[in-house]
């Protein structure tokens, strides 16, 4: 069936790969070493893939394209997105570590080339704790943004939803194109099914080099240190509840001097 261009749309969902939260962090030569650690798709990006799929399943005539920029291993995260249901993937393969501002240049270029209408990005990256990618991409494209969304609905080319702000939350309405960032509570990402995983192997994963984007890091990493604050570790036995409570309150009042 032919679909009018005005109703048909393309959604990009940005995928990053981060250290599994349960894994311990190692630093080698002034940088976090990920070498043999378990890496997973950033949960925040899973929300984005899931939401794109849900909007499509709710009736949006759309193609969902998963996009990643990074080393060869990133294709694992892209395969996960494809197995969840994304239609195809684009992998800009590079070992250069790009900060969010630099990354947004690559994403904006791809968005233009692909004629994207809606871009999903994780609200916060679990590794660098950066919030910048979505907003920076929106600015480069001259698009509005809806950050930290917890509910979304798409009717035609109008996106409505709810998102968190400084002092609570807001409901909003915005016309596409728009960049959306996610947060916990937006949805429950699905697990890839076995048929989904099989299908994903046949889906297109386009490889690109970073060179043509003419992008390099905008900040330089000088060092990384695992910092463990020395803690006192004065742990009391609570069998005698009154006694332990009295001792703890005494310590907080007279030794730590943090309560009145």
């Amino acid at each position, binding site marked *: 069936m032919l679909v009018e261009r005005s109703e048909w749309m393309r959604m990009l969902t940005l995928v990053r790969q981060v250290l599994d939260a349960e894994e311990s962090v190692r630093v080698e030569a002034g940088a976090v070493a990920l070498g043999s650690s378990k890496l997973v798709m950033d949960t925040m990006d899973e929300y984005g893939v899931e939401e794109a799929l849900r909007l499509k399943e709710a009736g949006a005539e759309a193609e969902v394209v998963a996009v990643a920029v990074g080393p060869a291993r990133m294709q694992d995260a892209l395969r996960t997105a494809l197995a969840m249901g994304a239609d195809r993937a684009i992998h800009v393969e590079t070992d250069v570590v790009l900060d969010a*501002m630099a990354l947004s240049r690559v994403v904006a270029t791809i968005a233009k080339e692909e004629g994207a209408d809606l871009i999903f990005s994780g609200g916060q990256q679990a590794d660098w704790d950066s919030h910048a990618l979505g907003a920076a991409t929106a600015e480069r494209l001259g698009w509005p943004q809806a950050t930290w969304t917890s509910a979304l609905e798409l009717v035609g080319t109008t996106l409505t939803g709810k998102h968190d702000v400084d002092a609570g*939350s*807001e409901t*909003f309405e915005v016309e596409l194109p728009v960049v959306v960032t996610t947060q916990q509570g937006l949805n429950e990402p699905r697990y890839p099914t076995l048929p989904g995983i099989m299908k994903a192997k046949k889906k297109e994963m386009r490889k690109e080099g970073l060179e043509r984007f003419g992008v390099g890091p905008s900040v330089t990493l000088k060092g990384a240190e695992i910092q463990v604050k020395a803690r006192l570790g004065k742990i009391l036995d609570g069998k005698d509840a009154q006694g332990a409570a009295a001792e703890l309150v005494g310590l907080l009042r007279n030794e730590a001097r*943090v309560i009145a």
Partner: protein
Amino acid sequence: MILIVAEMSGGKLSKSTLEMVAAARQMGRAGDVTALVLGSGVAAVAGEVAKYVDQVLVGDVPALAEYGPEVWAAAVAQIAKEGEASTVLIGGSRSGREYSPRVAVKLDAPLLEDVIALKDAGGTLTAERYTFLARVTETVETAAKVVVVTVKPGAFAPAGPATAVAEQFDVDLELPVSRLKVTGKTTEKTDRVSLTEADIVVSGGRGVGSAEAFEAMVVPLADRLGAAVGATRAIVDAGWRPYAEQVGQTGKTVQPKVYIAVGISGAVQHLSGMNKSKVIVAINKDAEAPIFKVADYGIVGDVKVLLPAILDELKK
């Protein structure tokens, strides 16, 4: 010029603004420390911030009555360009972290996010920030002429007043119309001190037992101490507490003088939101719980018995 975008809440200057002033003074970069006050009816805030900086620029127009990322980014970028700012400091609040990347793109500047330390050496700006769920401190630098920085709330001690009160200047702004239309607002209850500004935080997790037990034990302890209330993701997901109270990777990051963790085991995602607290107190029945590894003080025992006992003791 070092440009600071003043943050306010409920018509008052926020502590985070004075933290940015401290960061600007300590940075060691030449230029007037300039506060930009944006809003509608913000004369009182402008007057207050004037006590702390070298110069105040005021954009006080009805179009700025409501915050929006496109509008704020346009205003800040315009002033930064006109004043040839070398550094733009923006608060690490939800709004600051949302519009700062747009400012950086407009200025073609790098963005240093959520910094906890900032130092200039010969034109190169070096910053420290927490990464990997606050387990790593990374040092990053940039030699760019213009740098946009967001400052992590609580990382700098608020600055004291300057020797003289700064002069105020009105600015003319060219503002876009926000394309994100706000159709409704829900404001968090503000009768309690906010999580990110509180000196004391009392948080609860699964070990508290139930939503009712949380109301009956954790909330009164917080009230007694004048503390903010926090919660783990598990109990927010279970519907015991609102998301606004969630501390951790996907919730708020807090750095109070004392963090009291009640019935919290200490998953790494939770620790990332509170492990920079000055003093950590843990109350949990499981002596092996990871929370005790980061605790300064703690009691191993039954929360149901211990919390009332602690409340009794505090009343003495």
